[in-house]
């Protein structure tokens, strides 16, 4: 009898500990989904962003590597193609009909062909691409520098952000989009890349044009860029948080 009692008491304790552990874990999952608690966790974001901006001079560069450091295989992540028939037709002709639109709060709204983009002041950089998932790859990027391009279209005084509208949908009904502010827009390493590793950008890597904003994580580097809209804020665009992944809980300033 006493043996049985001991076993059941031990069983009770083990079950109790398991239930207690499950309650704590379940509680953490509930907290993770509670809007009030998420608001609290999200409060760290502006502190993180402001401290990064504080220690990061506007001119400090992401490290540039040598040809010998290039990744043998550079993973193509997110969308690796575009379903839109108009895009596919363009891809077939080597993007001869492609035009990048620049509009919004600019003095001279513009649209540029790939040839015109290639004639703009360019920069080549070998940089490390850091994915939010944790992996890194090194690639060589050549593209139009953003600063002279923005100077040529002229920003209106209320311009604060560039919004990059993309052709891909990444498994949803809404198009991919991203945004950066003027500090990153005017950074010397911010380019609209049309070449990768010395060849025209491939479709999996965002042909014909992708953003490189080297001091931030991979999801900021919008692929398949069709239009750059200059805005004073992005609250009315899609989910209102300034990007496809930002609308799904990721940080707008992706410095870490």
């Amino acid at each position: 009898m006493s043996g049985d009692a001991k076993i059941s008491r031990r069983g009770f304790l083990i079950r109790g500990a398991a239930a207690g552990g499950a309650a704590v874990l379940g509680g953490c999952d509930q907290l993770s989904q509670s809007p009030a608690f998420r608001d609290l966790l999200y409060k760290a974001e502006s502190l993180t962003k402001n401290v990064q901006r504080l220690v990061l001079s506007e001119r400090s560069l992401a490290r540039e590597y040598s040809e010998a450091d290039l990744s043998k295989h550079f993973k193509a992540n997110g969308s690796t193609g575009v379903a839109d028939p108009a895009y596919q037709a363009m891809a077939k002709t080597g993007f001869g009909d492609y035009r990048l639109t620049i509009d919004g709060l600019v003095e001279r709204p513009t649209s540029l062909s790939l040839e015109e983009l290639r004639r703009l002041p360019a920069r080549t950089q070998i940089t490390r691409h850091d994915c939010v998932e944790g992996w890194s790859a090194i690639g060589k990027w050549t593209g139009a520098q953003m600063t002279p391009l923005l100077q040529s279209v002229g920003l209106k005084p209320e311009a604060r952000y560039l919004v990059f509208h993309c052709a891909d949908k990444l498994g949803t009904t809404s198009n991919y989009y991203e945004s950066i502010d003027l500090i990153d827009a005017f950074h010397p390493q911010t380019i609209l890349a049309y070449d990768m590793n010395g060849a025209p950008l491939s479709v999996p890597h965002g042909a014909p044009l992708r953003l490189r904003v080297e001091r931030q994580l991979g999801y900021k580097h919008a692929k398949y860029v069709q239009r750059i809209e200059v805005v004073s804020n992005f609250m009315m665009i899609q989910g209102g948080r300034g990007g496809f992944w930002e609308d799904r809980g990721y940080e707008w300033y992706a410095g870490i």
Partner: protein
Amino acid sequence: MVASATVPQPEIVYRHSLAVRLTHWVNALCLLVLLMSGLQIFNAHPTLYFGSISEPDRAVLSLDAVERSDGSYAGVTTVGGLSFDTTGVLGLSQGPSGRIEARGFPQWITLPSYRDLATGRRWHFFFAWLLVFNGLAYLAYSFLSGHVRRDLSPSRDEIRHIGHSISEHARLRFPKGDEAKRYNVLQKLAYLAVIFGLLPLVFLTGLTMSPAMDAAFPFLLDVFGGRQSARTIHFLCAFALTLFFLVHIVMVILSGAFNNIRSMITGRYAIEPEEPRP
């Protein structure tokens, strides 16, 4: 009943200051959340490398789900070229929905339990800030109050007799009397290694994974040998901190769970009188 009159009563001392007790519990909460949310983040790419980039041939640790020849799936852990079947725990385990899924660490140790990198990062960075503020408060208090010098720095004498202390601990004989009023030399060294070694290292390797911090402080990449090396060291630090935590809990229990936990809550600690020598 008669004997109780002759047994010397334990002396109650005030062992932990309020600042130490508060920062201890905040630290414990932060490290637990950081470990579990960190494993959620790790699960987004459950492979570690050395160097700048993630070249598959330079992986040092990998938790994968692979298909067996009979069509079923297995969790496989690969460390330095050696593979182990870890089905159910690492690489492949039952997710919160009840379905078997490919996941590095199992759902009972990640935060959230279900796969959600964005929320894991929110938890991680919020509690990383809390850990930093708590750590700074602790360091300020500890240096200004003399806690480091008085309680944590081992004396030359203690270092000389460290062998004796190790053998006493190995036999689970813990100090009594006046000796029990201080941290033991092994305790001191363990705490110093965590406070001035592991925690600064986990903080710096965390920063080295940030492309923005790498642009601000490029030397971080040189110190740790690249972003992927930093990620691996960050993971090893978390592993070492977990080991410290487990040994810490075992020592708390073996050397008097109630007395130890009470002293970390109220500050009061009972000193067992030294046994009279025969």
